[in-house]
Structures are given as structure tokens and as C-alpha cells.
């Protein structure tokens, strides 16, 4: 690949850096054919909050599954076929009328990939990481999650090997719904704990 002529001036400095690293690793024979495209596709299509939503919906629909999920989340999540990198040791924390849970990684970007996908940009950026451990009630309200004064807040900083998933409360009026319909109600934010349903 020739540099410069093929790349219009509109390329940003970071794009030039990515292209440079890619070209050098390609020349050294380190990038298998199609690897980059396959990797991008995997992150875009195969993992994401739709997986976590299925876990939550199953827990709402099946009390025994919920018990297994709270006792051994890694195994219960594997029952639905989800697991792997950043999901080898899962803990699920359950919201109740009295307790609200929220997850953060103050040191980097730890996040349960198999069930939630790659973390959103704001989860990895300094404001969220700095503030969620210091003033969670204020920050949650700022993000649209206003909690009653007497609701206990438990923040979970993913600083070691465990990755967390929040089990949100099942919304009222959903008694007749199928598991698939319930999964459609579950948002990424509710499983991070920055929203209630």
C-alpha cells in the first residue's frame, strides 16, 4: 500500500497511525487474511446487550433460573450460550425496590462483553469513571435515573476479575408477556444500572 496518494488529506492523524500499524503488521505476515473484517463483524453482530436482555428476561420468567443466576451467574449465563473473554467470572447484582446497583470500572474499561458487548464510549471516558464512585446519586439523577432518597445505592467497581451485570426490576404490567417480549423491554443502561425500567 502506498501512503499519501491513496489517502486524502481528510484522514485524521489517528487514522494515519492505524493505517501505519496495520501496514507494518501486514508486511510482517502477522494479520491473517480477513482477520480485521471478521473481528469487526464479531463485535458488531455477535455480542451486545441483546444477549444480556435474554438473560434478564429468563430470570424474570423463571424463578428457578433467577436463583441459579444469582448463585452462579457464569454458569447460568452459559446455559443460554454466552461466555468467553470478559465473561469468565460473572456476578449478577439484583435491583429491588430498596436497593439499586450500578457498575463502573474506575481503572480502565472492564465490562461484561459476552452479555453487553463492547462498552459505550461514555462508560470508558473520565467523567463517568471519576464520578460514579464519588457521587452516584447525583450522577444517576443527572443521567435521568432519579432514585427515591431512601433507596440504597450499591456501586460495583470492576477492579479485579469479576464482571458484573445488573438484574433490573421487572416492570409492572408485564405479567402476560412472553420471554421474547420481556427481552425487548430490557435496555443496556438498565443492565449497567444507569437506568430503571
Amino acid at each position, binding site marked *: 500500500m502506498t501512503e499519501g496518494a491513496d489517502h486524502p488529506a481528510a484522514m485524521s492523524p489517528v487514522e494515519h497511525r*492505524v493505517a501505519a500499524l496495520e501496514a507494518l503488521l501486514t508486511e510482517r505476515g502477522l494479520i491473517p487474511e480477513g482477520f480485521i473484517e471478521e473481528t469487526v463483524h464479531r463485535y458488531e453482530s455477535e455480542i451486545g446487550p441483546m444477549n444480556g436482555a435474554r438473560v434478564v428476561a429468563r430470570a424474570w420468567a423463571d424463578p428457578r433460573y433467577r436463583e441459579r443466576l444469582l448463585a452462579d451467574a457464569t454458569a447460568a449465563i452459559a446455559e443460554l450460550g454466552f461466555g468467553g473473554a470478559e465473561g469468565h467470572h460473572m456476578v449478577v447484582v439484583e435491583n429491588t425496590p430498596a436497593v439499586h446497583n450500578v457498575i463502573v470500572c474506575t481503572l480502565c474499561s472492564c465490562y461484561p462483553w459476552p452479555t453487553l458487548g463492547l462498552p459505550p464510549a*461514555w462508560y470508558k471516558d473520565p467523567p463517568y469513571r471519576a464520578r460514579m*464512585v464519588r457521587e452516584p446519586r447525583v450522577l444517576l439523577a443527572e443521567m435521568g435515573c432519579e432514585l427515591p432518597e431512601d433507596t440504597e445505592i450499591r456501586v460495583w467497581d470492576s477492579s479485579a476479575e469479576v464482571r458484573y451485570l445488573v438484574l433490573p426490576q421487572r416492570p409492572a404490567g408485564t405479567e402476560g408477556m412472553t420471554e421474547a417480549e420481556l427481552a425487548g423491554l430490557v435496555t443496556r443502561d438498565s443492565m449497567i444500572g444507569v437506568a430503571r425500567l
Partner: protein
Amino acid sequence: MSRVRPVDGIHDLGGMQGFGAVGHTPAEPAFHRPWEGRARALMEVVLGAVRPNGGEFRHAIERMAPGHYLTSSYYEHWLTAAATLAVEHGLITRADLEARAGGAFPLSGPVLAPPVTGPGADVSVPRFGVGDQVRVREWHPPGHTRCPRYIRGKTGMVVRLDGSYPVPDVEAHGAGRRREPTYSVRFGAAELWADGQRGVSVHVDLWDSYLEPA
């Protein structure tokens, strides 16, 4: 050249003030721009080629210049750390990178911690149980650690045991490993910030040697 030895890296953000509002979006694609996905894949290529010790990649991010760290996205962090490890492990050179990029290619700074030559014996029996009060060691290691600054010297209660894992502080800086029990420890927000917050606790997951009996 700074004469101040930088410890307590810029990545250790818990509790820092002044960053303002969270740029929250209710949903977003895995990659906003094509380069982000490519950077992510290149990171996996480099990790596969150099096989870093546990914690070594994270520490390569932590060694970024503070200004660069705070003003770049996480995909750029991954790119920078991947390129840094590729250079440090001899796959490519910085000159190669800058020639190809047609300009500067900022890499992370050097490792400041001395190599760990004697990892020490595994700790097989947890020193603490659920309900025990523990205090976090008050120390400032020059290398990689997963003990955030905002809890050092603070007292909390063990709420969960999570099994034994290699201590990142050890394996990031040498070939040896030391496994220790890990714990989830609950800290009252009032203990951490002395600001009278009520009904708020923060849980941090910590290795055995980060803790002492309270």
C-alpha cells in the same frame, strides 16, 4: 524531562473532580468510525504476536502521557498500547511507525517499576471471610496495580470471596506469578469521601495482599 517520578497513573480516575457531565448516549454502535474497529482488531493481532504477561497490556495504557490519555478515546488508548508493546517486544520500530504515519506516533512512556524477579509463594488460604473488617494498604506502587487510589487507607467489609487469581502487580512486571484470594470489599461512601452521603456504598474487588486486618 520531569524530575518528579510519576506514580499513581492518570488512569486511576475514581473520585477525581472537574470532568463535568457524562456524554451519555442511550445506544451507540460498537465502532463509531471504521478506524476504531481496525484498531481493536490490530490490538488483538499484537497481543497474539507478543503474548504479554497478564496486566502488561493494561499497564501499557497506564503509561500513556497524562495529557494524551485524557484527550483521546479508548480506541486510541488501545492503539497506543498495542503499538507500544509491538515496539517494546521488537516486532517493529518507532521509526517505522512514524515513517508510515507521516508524522508523530505517540507511544506510552517507559516502565518505571523494577522487574519482579521473585514473585513469592501463592496464598492458598484466604486471610479474610465475609463480614470481616479490612483496611486497604496505604502505598503507592510505581508499577501496575489494580488497587485504586481512592480506597487506600480506607476501611471496609468483605462481602464476597471470588477465588484465587494471579496478582497483576507481580505478573505485569515479570515472568513469575503469585496467586492470591480475591475479595469484594464494601466501603461506605461516607468513609471514602467524608461528605455525609447516606445509603451509598462502593464495592471494590481486591487481592489479598492489598489488605490488612482492621
